[in-house]
């Protein structure tokens, strides 16, 4: 059975136009996904609609067979859907450790939280070194690590990550992608939105191409990377430029 089912979702902001014009996506347990597409395709909006930050104007979202649209983000998190937004959204004057512990706000078992904290420090040793530093003073890459580490504190079933490589140096971005690939082993189903289509698709099993608010294509990630037609149409300029650089 699919873990998460998005059915013909239409969504937009305030009184503005529809950003998503009817998107249907199925997320299966144990597969990792990367959503790609040009700027303004609605990739981030789709994640926000799923995690409850933005209520869909129409359509259904089902998680583990239950209808979840209209639920608040904290209720979605309780159900097992966690979100890491584009800007890492940390608590700037709290320390790294406090930020990570806030990630486990819904977990009452302190012992379990301590264990998970150790795991996060293992995955991101840089954070262990800076555990008592306030989060607002970290570099962009370290902030992203805190945001990812924070999401591990709750061990979600599905983790939605929005543009983790945004604004990061390539080496740091590579490290972040490597860690994200490792999340699958923890039983976390990762759904990644990525502007950097090559890196994103390389880190995922399945690719979903969005354009103008609806799904244009989906298939195995390596297939999309290899298909010249899709690259030309939806990822064209960006991929061409990337390859030129390589």
């Amino acid at each position, binding site marked *: 059975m699919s873990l998460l089912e998005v059915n013909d979702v239409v969504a937009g902001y*305030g009184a503005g136009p529809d950003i998503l014009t009817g998107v249907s996506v199925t997320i299966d347990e144990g597969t990792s996904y990367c959503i790609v597409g040009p700027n303004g395709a609605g990739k981030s909006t789709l994640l926000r609609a799923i995690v409850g*930050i933005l209520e869909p104007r129409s359509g259904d979202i089902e998680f583990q067979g239950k209808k979840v649209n209209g639920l*608040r*983000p*904290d209720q979605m*998190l*309780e159900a097992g859907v*966690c*979100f*890491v*937004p584009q800007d890492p*959204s*940390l*608590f*700037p*004057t*709290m320390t790294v450790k406090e930020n990570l512990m*806030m*990630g486990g*706000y*819904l977990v009452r078992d302190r012992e379990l939280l301590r264990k998970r904290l150790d795991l996060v420090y293992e995955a991101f040793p840089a954070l262990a070194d800076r555990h008592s530093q306030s989060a607002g003073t970290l570099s962009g890459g370290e902030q992203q690590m805190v945001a990812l580490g*924070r999401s591990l504190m*709750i061990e979600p079933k599905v983790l939605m990550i929005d543009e983790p490589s945004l604004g990061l140096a390539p080496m740091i971005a590579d490290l972040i992608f490597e860690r994200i690939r490792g999340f699958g082993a923890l039983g976390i189903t990762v759904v990644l939105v990525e502007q950097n289509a090559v890196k994103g698709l390389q880190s995922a099993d399945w690719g979903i191409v969005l354009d103008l608010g609806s799904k244009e294509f989906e298939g195995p990630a390596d297939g999309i990377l290899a298909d010249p037609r899709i690259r030309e149409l939806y990822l064209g300029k960006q991929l061409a430029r990337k390859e030129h650089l390589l």
Partner: protein
Amino acid sequence: MIDLVQVLILGLLLGGVYALMASGLTLLFGVMRIVNLAHAALILIAAYITFVLFDSLALDPIVAVLITMPVMFGLGVGLYLLLFPRIEGTHRYVEMTVLLTFGLALIVEGLLAFIFTGIFRQTRPDYVMDAIVIPIGEDQLFIPTGQLYAMVVSLVLLAGLWAFLQLTRTGRAIRATTQNRAAAQIVGINVRRVSALAFGVGLALAGASGSLVSFIFPFFPSKHWQWIALMLALIVLGGMGSIKGAVLGALILAVASAFVQDAFGATWSPIAFYLALFLILLVRPQGLFGAKLRL
């Protein structure tokens, strides 16, 4: 010399009470970005409740804190749920809170004037007329007992607030919401519920302040305009949203105005208040402990 110490003591005593009055206001701004212009009017409600209890049952105003705090907490949660979800997520939310709470202040003032008329009221427990006299050589220091009690109760409540925010799970949720509302949502905090709670806590602090000021300042229904101006000055100085800042701001401004009052007379003391505010903001526009504002 001894005169200066005396003035300093009076300033600090008053500052402690100002700090309590302003702590609720700054909490509401910090957590919910609500500029609560009705805060002083709500303090007045608590002062009038205290007055009625004192007048009819001879209940001590400090004991009345035990009643005004829960009553105002309940009122706060109710008011929040009734009024604020309507404007949440609207364009220009902060400006809307100013209009909304301005209207609320007018309504409260009108109701209080209708019920209690415009007569000056004050509770007069025995200790209000007392003072502790400390002989120092030839001279004497006076510590007015009522203000001392009010200051001590204020500090105890502020310490309690600090402990609540730092040590409890709900307190952590309130602090997290203050720092980053979006992030608070992401880690599973129900920000609507936390906001309602914080509004209740803010008004509970207003409730305690109302009981305490009932025997320090004579009050009447339109008195709150004077108080709100003063409290806004305090929290702007301290950095809006920072409770530490509100406490420090209150102490600084109360002491400054006490010294000016001593040197130039009572007429000049409110001016000193705002002059000190202007001067400090020239140097530090975000206030003493304020983060740069992102509205």
